[in-house]
């Protein structure tokens, strides 16, 4: 108990003093996970929508694969990304192992199926005749797809939340492909693991609290937008 209180006090000390190391770790976490979420939003929404709106043989199989991907274990992603981008691996020439880029790639791979699965479900959940109605009002195919995506914006916001929440709190892949390099690829989760390993529970708790606050703030922001949409 004493440890927790000590940790919380330390966390506030670090926060209030704008400890440069903690701030840079936090900022880096936000940048990496934010970028990864944005990338996953692009691929997830476009592919999810395309799958939802087209009929092709094997569609059910594809949907099952996407749904399975929503629960992709981060360490497995980390492992495969590492193997691929090893210096002597097939994508070694990119020289991105142990860089924030590699972390973005891994996190985007983790988040994309989540966003894709939710987009797919939300587009499929729209009334089946809505597509025809929009086309009948003179929309081109692109305009129709755009209206459908806009119409699913609430579930898509949920997708962003789920994706971002998944990757910012993810540690397995980040430590494998990022390497937890100080001031370069050390993010909140990997730093928390390291500080716990060093027995610095107070700093670990502080980092954990920052992570919680961060996740809470992002969700608060998105929920606020979502609620405003509801009221309008």
């Amino acid at each position: 108990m004493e440890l927790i209180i000590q940790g919380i006090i330390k966390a506030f000390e670090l926060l209030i003093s704008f400890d440069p190391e903690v701030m840079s770790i936090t900022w880096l976490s936000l940048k990496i996970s934010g970028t990864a979420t944005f990338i996953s939003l692009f691929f997830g929404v476009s592919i999810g929508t395309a799958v939802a709106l087209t009929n092709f043989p094997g569609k059910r199989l594809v949907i099952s694969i996407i749904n399975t991907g929503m629960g992709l274990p981060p360490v497995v992603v980390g492992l495969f990304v590492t193997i691929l981008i090893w210096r002597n691996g097939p994508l070694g020439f990119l020289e991105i192992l142990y860089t924030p880029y590699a972390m973005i790639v891994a996190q985007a791979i983790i988040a994309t199926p989540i966003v894709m699965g939710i987009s797919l479900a939300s587009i499929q959940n729209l009334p089946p005749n809505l597509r025809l109605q929009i086309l009948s009002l003179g929309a081109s195919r692109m305009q129709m797809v755009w209206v459908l995506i806009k119409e699913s914006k609430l579930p898509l916001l949920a997708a962003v939340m789920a994706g971002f929440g998944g990757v910012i709190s993810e540690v397995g892949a980040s430590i494998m492909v990022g390497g937890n390099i100080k001031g370069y690829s050390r993010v909140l989760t990997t730093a928390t693991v390291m500080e716990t390993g060093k027995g610095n529970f107070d700093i670990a708790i502080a980092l954990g609290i920052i992570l919680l606050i961060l996740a809470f703030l992002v969700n608060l922001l998105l929920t606020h937008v979502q609620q405003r949409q509801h009221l309008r």
Partner: protein
Amino acid sequence: MTPILTIQNLIVQRGGVIVLDVRELNVEESRILALIGPNGAGKSTLLLTLAGLLKPSRGILRYKGRTIETNADRADMRRSVSVVFQEPLLLNTSVEKNVALGFKFRHLNNVEIKRNVDEALNYFGITALAKRSAKTLSGGEAKRVSLARAFALKPQVILLDEAFNSLDPPTRETLMDDLRHILEETKITAVMALHDREETLRLAQDAAVMVDGKIVQSGTTAGIFNRPDSEFVASFVGTETILEGTVKSGSAEMMEIAVAGETIQATGAFPVGQSVYCCIRPENITVSTDMPEKTSARNVFEAKISKITRQAFFYKMFLDCGFPLVAYITVSSCEDLGLCEGSVVAVSFKATAIHVMRRE
């Protein structure tokens, strides 16, 4: 006058099954065509095809004489043919933004959009709803918004799928009147899938009866209701009495038909010995307590009331005069005459009120 939309030998398949097989259909300009028939008859499929939203497996669709073949043709046609579905299908935004949707697709500027939207809202009497969220509308209001959205675009043809379904009766009544006025005023050609005979009679000038993906009879509404081609159409359009009979004798325009030992006089010219159906619409039968002394009706029978059922605004009487007969009588007349089950009455109907058709 050339029809604005025509269909020839059109076949639509779904999952290998033929769901629509229309030999011919002409939609005349500035008229209202009703598609009627039981559920699953293919009315909605036919509407989607006419709207250019569904690619037929085979056959020809012409819009203003131009054959619609490619996806581009269909997309082009969709700019002047609008559909209003059974469910309102409004987007989760304000009413005016919903009505503006079609104009956004056409890249109109905001001033023009506003003018058109206001006009359409005014037309359907929903100006007050402009700023409301579509989610908060009642069923009738949502329906009006969805109609306004389609009419705002001033389409050449408007296609309505079960427009009045799931609306409560008063809402339905006023909407039906408003819609008829708007169609009359704008001269927009309309095709409506309807399942109610009364709606058909009130709104449509033309009708096509569908069953199992086929059009079994088409023509003017009056023609179909009064002169059905088949027993199916007859019963579907509400001819309550359909009697089997044989032509006994005939002159130039008048026939005597033997029905269950009685003789009915009807107009028409079928050869003697021909098996026929005699169709008598209930509203064409007069019921009285005494034998009418002077009547122009050729057919007068004594009948026993076997059953009376209450309808919305009238009674429906099942009569037995050797053959079964169904007649309507107003609630007040029924009470004035003191009729009840078992009463004996006189029924009369004109020879011209009987529609005779060939029985195979």
